[in-house]
């Protein structure tokens, strides 16, 4: 099989793990709705499958990627969060996307914080951005809760105008730590 490993992480309410085939039904449903407009959707089911395959392959090629988010209480797949840097990407990125019935609970912040801690502590990242659609207020609120700051606008050839948010560097988090943003 592919030589890759997705390290399993845990937060208070979530398990972060590799994607499985059984997660894809939820992704297909999500990608059929307008809620996916900020992450390249809506797209047909077969392209949703390919998107998940691509996320798994990012681990194989880069050694990091997006985790599937599993709700501890129910075992349900509630979304994904992780670290993204395909070839040609602006900068190393921290991203998050929740399925439609999982929003409003703080899951994105909880998961992205775990992903960022992994980036800092395990991968040695010194900085990271998040690219956010200017209309995506929920995502901007997550970025703000994570202590990220709006930096500039960027004209993406595919997504149009997006906002670049800059995450705090590891050194900025030492005093007060992540709790300062919780």
């Amino acid at each position: 099989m592919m030589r890759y490993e997705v390290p399993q992480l845990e937060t208070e309410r979530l398990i972060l793990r590799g994607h499985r085939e059984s997660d894809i039904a939820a992704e297909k449903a999500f990608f059929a709705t307008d809620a996916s407009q900020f992450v390249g959707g809506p797209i047909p089911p077969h392209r949703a499958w390919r998107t998940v395959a691509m996320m798994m392959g990012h681990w194989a090629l880069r050694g990091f990627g997006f985790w599937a988010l599993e709700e501890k209480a129910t075992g349900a797949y509630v979304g994904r969060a992780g670290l993204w840097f395909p070839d040609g990407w602006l900068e190393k990125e921290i991203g998050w996307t929740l399925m439609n019935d999982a929003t409003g609970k703080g899951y994105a912040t909880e998961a992205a914080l775990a992903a960022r801690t992994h980036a800092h502590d395990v991968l040695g990242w010194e900085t990271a951005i998040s690219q956010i659609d200017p209309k995506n207020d929920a995502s901007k609120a997550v970025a703000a809760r994570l202590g990220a700051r709006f930096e500039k606008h960027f004209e993406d050839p595919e997504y149009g105008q997006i906002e670049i948010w800059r995450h705090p560097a590891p050194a900025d988090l030492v005093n007060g730590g992540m709790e300062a943003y919780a």
Partner: protein
Amino acid sequence: MTIAPTISTARLTLRQPEAGDFPAYAGYCASDRARFVGGPFDAVKAFEKLAAMAGHWVLRGFGRYIIEHKGAPVGHVGPLALESGQDPEMTWTLWNETSEGKGIAKEASAAVLDHLLQDAQWAGLISRVDAQNTPSRRLAESLGATLTDEAAPSWMPTAVTYRFLKVGV
């Protein structure tokens, strides 16, 4: 049975995609050779496609192999199963014209088909080839595929469909 992650032939090693394949693969994606599969594609798309090729192995337990010839990646070959409810699709692609005319695509495809249809006893595979892609159509026929009258899918309206069947059925 488990599908082999690596297959060796007389001249070739077929193996799973890895990060070092990216420059050569991106070169192919940016070239006119990608026109039969919806391209050319930029580097971002190329990365996504190579990642999807790797992720297919993770999710399905089989996928497309990188063709290695004299230590260099020169193409990809193997089965693809998107969610079409159909038999998996057999594909073969050489990334550079300098690899053509040496029987590499045929040697690689024949080894994969042997493994899937004989060792693993798969019932069958299809192949979709652009009607104008004469070299690829000839290759399908020389590998024992039969042309079907299946309609072209909406996303590849100029394709013809071939079918490979399990040996001895």
